[in-house]
């Protein structure tokens, strides 16, 4: 296994994962989307809502606000309190707003200083003069497989590492006009794709079709054991922690499987 990181920021990352089976790349992608524990608002106690939104709509909008995750929190079902509610599985939040103003996610007040909305600028509702919102919210840890509100990894995906072979090219340039990613150039009277540009290829094969030679001088293929992986975090985890957590989830499950098989 080889990992080569191309970009890594707080919220997003792009890396090349090579010499692994597709199932490993897909397992990590699936784990990031569905199996990484995350905090989100699940219950509301509404004291006052005179805004234009129904209570339910307001609830949905609040639930979809990503909260930063703290590793001390565990899902209710795995908590020592057996789901009764304790500080290690429930988090209380509050939102008080008085119109006229636009209520943003940054106005949500969390009782735990370690957990807060990941973004402060998500609009929730616009209040006019005389409209008020006063509510208490309870956040729980959950998994993306149950509801999107707990989905930590967004826009996760991978593609096979493109491999474009150019042989016996006459330099007509038809493929250059056709390429939607504009990655082909002419070098020494032949079509040429630089290694930095190769990764941008979407494997659409339009260049192959545009080529006037038979068989085409440009052949698009890919490496079946090498992947260009891109993903974004919703802000609950840093991009690096998210992928490590996903690997952790798979590791734990495999460990559990070995443990059970040991007893058979």
């Amino acid at each position, binding site marked *: 296994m080889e990992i080569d990181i191309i970009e890594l920021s707080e919220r997003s990352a792009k890396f090349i994962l090579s010499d692994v089976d597709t199932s490993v790349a897909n397992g990590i992608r699936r784990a990031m989307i569905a199996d990484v524990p995350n905090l989100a608002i699940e219950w509301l106690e509404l004291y006052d809502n005179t805004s234009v939104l129904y209570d339910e709509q307001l609830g949905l909008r609040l639930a979809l606000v990503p909260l930063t995750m703290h590793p001390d929190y565990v899902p209710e079902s795995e908590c020592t309190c057996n789901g009764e509610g304790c500080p290690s599985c429930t988090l209380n939040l509050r939102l008080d707003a008085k119109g006229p103003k636009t209520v943003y996610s940054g106005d949500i007040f969390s009782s735990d200083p370690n957990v807060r909305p990941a973004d402060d600028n998500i609009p929730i509702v616009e209040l006019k003069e005389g409209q008020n919102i006063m509510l208490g919210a309870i956040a729980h840890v959950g998994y993306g497989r149950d509801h999107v509100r707990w989905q930590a990894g967004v826009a996760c995906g991978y593609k096979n590492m493109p491999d474009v072979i150019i042989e016996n090219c006459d330099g007509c340039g038809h493929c250059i006009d056709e390429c939607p990613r504009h990655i082909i150039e002419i070098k020494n009277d032949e079509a040429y794709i630089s290694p930095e540009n190769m990764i941008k290829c979407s494997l659409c094969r339009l260049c192959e079709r545009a080529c006037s030679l038979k068989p085409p001088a440009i052949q698009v293929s890919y490496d079946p054991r090498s992947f260009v992986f891109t993903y974004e975090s919703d802000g609950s985890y840093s991009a690096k922690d998210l992928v490590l957590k996903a690997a952790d989830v798979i590791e734990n*499950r495999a460990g559990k*499987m070995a443990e059970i098989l040991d007893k058979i």
Partner: protein
Amino acid sequence: MEITILSQKKDEIEILIKGETHTLMNIVKAVLVEDERVETAFYDIKRLQNSVEKEPVLYIKTIDNADPITVLKEVALKIENLMEEFKAKFNAASS
């Protein structure tokens, strides 16, 4: 996770792995197939008898009467090491 053996012979086994999804099963299958002691291995996410939920059923057939459970256990440990390697390599590449 709950494991139930549905049928078992000397060199083959069919087991129900309750609570699992494609996330782990696909990796298990891929690693099993690469193992030289395994003749064939596949899984299917099935609806069993009166159950409403679909659960994966894994089938393994081995060569030379190798114990399928031992093979599967070793595969699970191999996946653990693979993920450990992934984390180590990612940490090394990002620092």
